[in-house]
């Protein structure tokens, strides 16, 4: 079994940390910088900053947010939202990001994946897929917070992006996101067992049992969660000790 990463996902809008359901209907949670520092101190393995709105103005805000976070947070940071070109990536990496996750711009112009991978390495180029189930055993990739269908079947899209240079997949189930009803393990398994790069499962974590399902059945390489941490429904220490007791290879946090 590979090493499983435990990742906190911070969805941001303007200056605020937000949380929605199915990537919509957002509520303000607090200051993303405070949450990022707190999760770092608790021993999070990675952070994902996701800006769903991501206009040009918003992206500048995101760059500044990443810069401030990187002064106190010494774990990998992935940034998602509104990244359209190689120059956008460069700006975020200079601010302290390690990877970018790209959805809309890659779906519109898949060659962007190759451009980013060539310039910064495949490890930096994360393909973000917002997946919705459209029929039994069939999921379609969406953009714009799960609102716009792309016509791409999820696994075919993942494989094509990996051929172009994507080094990791951030796989969000729009159906489960924010519901705390558990991950879409069929979706995760379909992708994680079929591609040669790590898959981060996102959307649906509500209990420790959900973590077990997505690792054992879904075969996720990494697990991202938001709600359970933001609202302190579960503690990171509790999640980590559950994973260690279950025999998963997770980092033993040594402060």
């Amino acid at each position, binding site marked *: 079994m590979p*090493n499983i990463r435990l990742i906190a996902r911070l969805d941001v809008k303007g200056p605020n940390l937000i949380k929605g359901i199915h990537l919509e209907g957002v509520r303000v949670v607090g200051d993303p910088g405070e949450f990022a520092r707190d999760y770092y101190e608790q021993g999070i393995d990675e952070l994902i900053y996701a800006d769903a709105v991501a206009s040009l103005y918003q992206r500048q805000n995101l760059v500044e947010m990443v810069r401030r976070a990187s002064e106190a947070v010494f774990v990998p940071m992935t940034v998602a939202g509104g990244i359209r070109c190689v120059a956008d990536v460069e700006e975020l990496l200079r601010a302290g990001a390690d990877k970018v996750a790209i959805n809309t711009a890659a779906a519109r112009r898949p060659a962007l994946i190759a451009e980013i991978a060539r310039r910064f390495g495949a490890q930096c180029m994360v393909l973000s897929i917002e997946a919705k189930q459209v029929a039994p055993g069939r999921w379609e990739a969406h953009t714009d917070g799960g609102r716009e269908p792309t016509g791409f079947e999820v696994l075919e899209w993942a494989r094509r992006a990996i051929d172009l240079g994507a080094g990791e997949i951030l796989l969000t189930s729009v159906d489960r996101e924010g519901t705390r009803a558990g991950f879409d393990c069929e979706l995760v398994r379909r992708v994680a067992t079929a591609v040669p790069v790590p898959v981060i499962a996102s959307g649906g974590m509500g209990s420790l049992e959900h973590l077990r399902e997505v690792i054992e059945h879904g075969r996720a*390489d990494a697990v991202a969660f938001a709600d359970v941490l933001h609202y302190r429904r579960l503690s990171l220490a509790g999640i980590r000790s559950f994973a260690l007791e279950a025999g998963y290879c997770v*980092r033993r946090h*040594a402060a």
Partner: protein
Amino acid sequence: MPPDVVVVDYGMGNVASVLRAVAACGAKPALSGDRQSVATASRLILPGVGAFRDGMDELRRRGLIEPIHAFVGTRRPFLGICLGMQMMLSVSEEFGPVPGLGLIGGNVVAIPDRGRDGQPHKVPHVGWNRIIPRNGCAGALLEGLGPDASAYFVHSYAAAPDSPGSIVADCDYDGCRIPAVIRSGALHGCQFHPEKSGPTGLRILHNFLAFS
């Protein structure tokens, strides 16, 4: 006042994170691609993210290979991180063979594509992994680390030094033993990213900044 450590700027890698982590250790870093500053630094960090050939090409294009050798000749402390560590070796098979800096004899080879159970596993090796010191290699960069100390790795190739004695610590990726820390005298390399490895990584950087 001169900086405590010069971080080599050659257009590759997450230099901002390296600078901030060095600063968090209480030291004064300077980012520089200037030949004189590199050759005469009191300590040198060669960071790096990306492909071996691109890294060597950038060092060559900026005329930094000779200043790095000049620095190494002073026997002052040197730290290569990830690609920076791999470039310390003689030659890489990544899209190669491609010659490296040759500071430590040996090759850079692909991570085996099969794991402990003989089945294909995922490469790159991405994630946190425990640092396993070899016998008698507790000091220097690893001073003060606990038995569970883990660091963040992201790489598809691994160092294979000619002399096993230059491997200070390994990690175990799904049954594959991968050198995590190498050392020859004042030359240190780590395959993981100390600047992204939380308190453990900061401790390792702190140890490098205190090494004499």
